[in-house]
């Protein structure tokens, strides 16, 4: 019921102030898109909203919610509308022909026997009985699928494992963990999300783990809030890799070698606005000797989205958002853009791989774990 959605997300309290639209990255380029107007129209003409293809354009970056004086949870509002719209057979336009959605749905199969651990090099230590679990997520698939833009997503996994080993953690890595379901959930497919979550929880229980370490902010946010939300008690401690590091770095337990260069940092929405982790990544970057860290104009709470989410509705406006963000990063004078979410990295790399991308805006895009792992081994 759309009335329930309006109530639940406090959309009734919308003051029509338009702050959301003012900060919305989509609205910045797509004149047709306005969170304020969508809320307003939904309240007045409930029935029409599910047919509105604009609900699939929202990036759910939470910028609007962050600014809303009435605490209207717009992205939750959008998500719930998507659930209802999907019930009526509507969906967004899947990128890559829907391949990634298919991968996620395939993983709902109960007796899957994945071969996803080939990436673990012999020098990386894992164990079968650790209370720690490293949840790799989609990285093996991304690494393959985005090999054409040289995303090398598995570098993130290898780096994470390397760092964990350094912290004397030899985590379990499960051969049959599933996709966390984040993207299905945000594109309104609750049914398959729940299936994935159940499979995952069963796998976790079977492995007997207590702490789950993630290198992906989406999985982190998802385990932290959505799993308990949809499946009740979630008896595992969820840790993002960035939460483990600052102490160890400042205490000198992990030694780093100097790296020269000027870098800037892209706050992933799931880590920043969703999970309030703003300082840890910055501390990590700053702990690397020789690094000059500069902030972009819009950073932290105001950080701009990378342009696409949930592998759908990647539009012309997505590209414009990415170009805008890359321009902003470049304008800081940095030559490297550090991301902390494999998807941000993929999106920025993809934008740069496209024809007509201006040479002067070329930037190195690297995940923070990889960046840190490259700096390991200092005196």
């Amino acid at each position: 019921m759309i009335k329930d959605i309006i109530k639940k997300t406090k959309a009734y309290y919308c003051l029509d102030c338009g702050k959301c639209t003012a900060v919305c990255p989509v609205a910045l380029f797509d004149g047709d898109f306005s969170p304020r107007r969508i809320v307003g129209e939904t309240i007045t003409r409930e029935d029409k909203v599910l047919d509105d293809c604009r609900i699939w354009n929202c990036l759910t970056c939470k910028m609007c919610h962050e600014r809303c004086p009435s605490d209207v949870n717009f992205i939750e509002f959008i998500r719930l509308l998507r659930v209802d719209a999907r019930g009526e057979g509507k969906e967004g336009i899947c990128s890559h022909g829907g391949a990634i959605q298919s991968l996620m749905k395939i993983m709902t199969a109960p007796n899957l026997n994945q071969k996803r651990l080939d990436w673990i090099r012999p020098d990386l230590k894992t164990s079968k009985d650790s209370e720690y679990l490293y949840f790799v997520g989609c990285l093996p698939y991304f690494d393959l699928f985005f090999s054409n833009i040289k995303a090398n997503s598995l570098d993130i996994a290898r780096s994470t494992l390397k760092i964990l080993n350094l912290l004397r953690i030899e985590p379990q890595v499960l051969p049959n963990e599933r996709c966390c379901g984040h993207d299905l959930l945000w594109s309104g497919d609750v049914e398959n999300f729940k299936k994935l979550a159940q499979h995952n929880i069963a796998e976790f229980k079977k492995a007997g783990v207590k702490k789950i370490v993630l290198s992906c902010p989406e999985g982190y946010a998802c385990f932290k809030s959505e799993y308990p939300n949809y499946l009740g008690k979630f008896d595992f401690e969820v840790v993002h890799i960035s939460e483990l590091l600052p102490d160890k770095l400042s205490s000198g337990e992990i030694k780093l070698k100097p790296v020269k260069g000027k870098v800037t940092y892209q706050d992933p929405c799931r880590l920043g606005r969703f999970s309030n982790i703003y300082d840890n990544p910055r501390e990590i970057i700053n702990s690397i000797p020789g690094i000059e860290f500069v902030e972009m104009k819009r950073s932290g709470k105001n950080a701009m989205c990378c342009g696409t989410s949930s592998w759908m509705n990647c539009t012309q406006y997505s590209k414009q958002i990415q170009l805008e963000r890359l321009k902003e990063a470049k304008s800081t004078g940095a030559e490297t853009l550090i991301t902390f979410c494999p998807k941000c990295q993929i999106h920025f790399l993809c934008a740069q791989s496209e024809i007509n991308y201006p040479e002067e805006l070329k930037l190195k895009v690297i995940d923070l774990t990889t960046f840190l792992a490259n700096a390991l081994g200092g005196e």
Partner: protein
Amino acid sequence: MYRLETTLKKEKIKLFFPRLSSDVHTISRLEPSSCRVACPAGIQVKAYIGLIVAGKFQEALDLIKKDNPLPGICGRVCTHPCESECNRRKVDESVAICALKRFVADWELKKSVKRAEPIARISDEKIAIVGSGPAGLTCANDLIRLGYGVTVFEKLPFAGGMLTAGIPSYRLPREIINKEIENITDLGVEIRLGVKVGKDVGFDELMEQGFKAFFIAVGAHQGLKLNVPGENDYQGFIDCVDFLRNVNSGDHKKPGRKVIVIGGGNSAIDASRTALRLGCDEVFVVYRRSRKEMPANVSEIEEAEKEGVKIHYLAAPVKILGKKGKVAGMECIKMRLGEPDESGRRKPVPLEGSEFVIEADVIIPSISQKPDLSFLPKDHEFKLSKWDTFEVDPVTFATNIQGFFAGGDAMSGPNTVVDAIAHGHFVARSINRYLKHKDLKKITHSSSEVREWGFRLEIEGEKPIERNHFPKLSIEKRLNSFEEVDLCFTEEQAIAEAKRCLRCGPCVECQECVAGCSKRLVMLSFPHKEAQEIGRVPEFILRVPTDPMKLPRDKRSEEVVISWRDEEEKENQLTLALEPITCFVDKDMCRGCGKCEKVCEYKAITLKPVKEGLVVSEIDESICKGCGTCVAICTTGAIKARHFTDKRIEQMLESCLNQE
């Protein structure tokens, strides 16, 4: 369109591809022009007239010959139903279609034409055609071109059937008939003259000789009786058919002084004008209705009257008067026209007490004819109508006896030449299918489908142009000879007359583009193979593979009827509009990544700048061939294939994977 596949194809998934992939573009004439519909033989009238306008007389003749192997004959004696349906009549008078046909036929005669080579025999089967009239000749022409062996049996010492025996040479010179028959025999058709099938050679004998199919086209050569008193009592009575046959065989003896011809058809007028030419003093025609109802061609009646034939309209014979065993005259009664009968013509009613007498020594009844069935054995099993004509299946022209087909006047009773030609075509098609062991019933003839002519012609603003009249032989010259009366158009006249054609519809169907395209890119084809095989298809479709689709979208589609049986074995039909599969870009979705531009082998995709630093790809659908590689490579889903969307493929997958 989609539903059809998911719900109905339980056993096998079959995809109805829009047949018009954009490799092919069509010029489609959905309805043939009214003149073509009116023509029993379906001649492409508008097309050959268009070619005459262009001065392409040979091409025009070739086109006519596709549907009518006897253009010179038809150009003279056809009743030209096409002219009655001509849209030009709404402006002034119809185009002189018939005379134009004659013009091109004569044009060819005037120059020396290389004689045709015999057609190579492909199949062993032989076909016997009984009767060498227009039906038999047309059928022989069609079958020999299909590679069969064809033998035509003719009872008379000359070929042509009623054309030669019944039509006087002042209307149809013998050399025209001979030339056109020669064109057919040149292809390898054997005509055996003076052989009476059934008497000289039996059907059993022919079967033993290897004839696999028979076409009975013996015509209707037996005159009907008048059924008036005195008819059988006196000398001086000659049946019209016999009279004309004798004259046409060279017997130019004067039959008598005063001649009465009874009837109002073309043969009655022929008999009267022939009698005048033989030197008879007075020739009367007695017809029971008025001139308006007279079935003979108007120009024939006019010419007969000019030559001196006296026509008594609204008069009927009552009894024959005789003296000394010879005809002396005929008592007639005046008639008036009553209510229309079942044929739509007003029924003549006698006016009591209006009897009058016409003196004469010869009476030529020409009321109607029936087939002369004396060639059939007494115990034959053919189903006949009450008029002694052969009863056949109206679609296949098959008689009740397997392997025997009948057509022409022998089947329909006295009829026109062009109808006989049409029958010849239909029977040839049926015999072909019969010999190939295909279902005869699947034949459809365009003439059996009543098609409404849907094209709206704009005649407003058309200026009247006087119809061109061909010159005629002077009256003086006519009466002592059998020289041809109607003379031919000159080239200038023909072109001027052809220009009067309104060219109903956009394409004149002349097929010159097919012949003219050096790269052989233009093809003429019919939508269904099956249809092409079994009969003419009214639609005319030209496939032009390279022609860019500059037409508006709605003009590009083609309709196709698909039929299937549902679970209850019920026949269902659905008309689908098929459009080519082409790809298009959703502009909002496109990121302008440029991948599609690289994979498009046809350079249909270009990147168009939309904003500073931003490009969007654009597909020129006139170039796109619909291969879908760009759809496969598009990361955002901005490129979609018309009629072949992702959703559709997904549903196809579902439907074929969920069936048990």
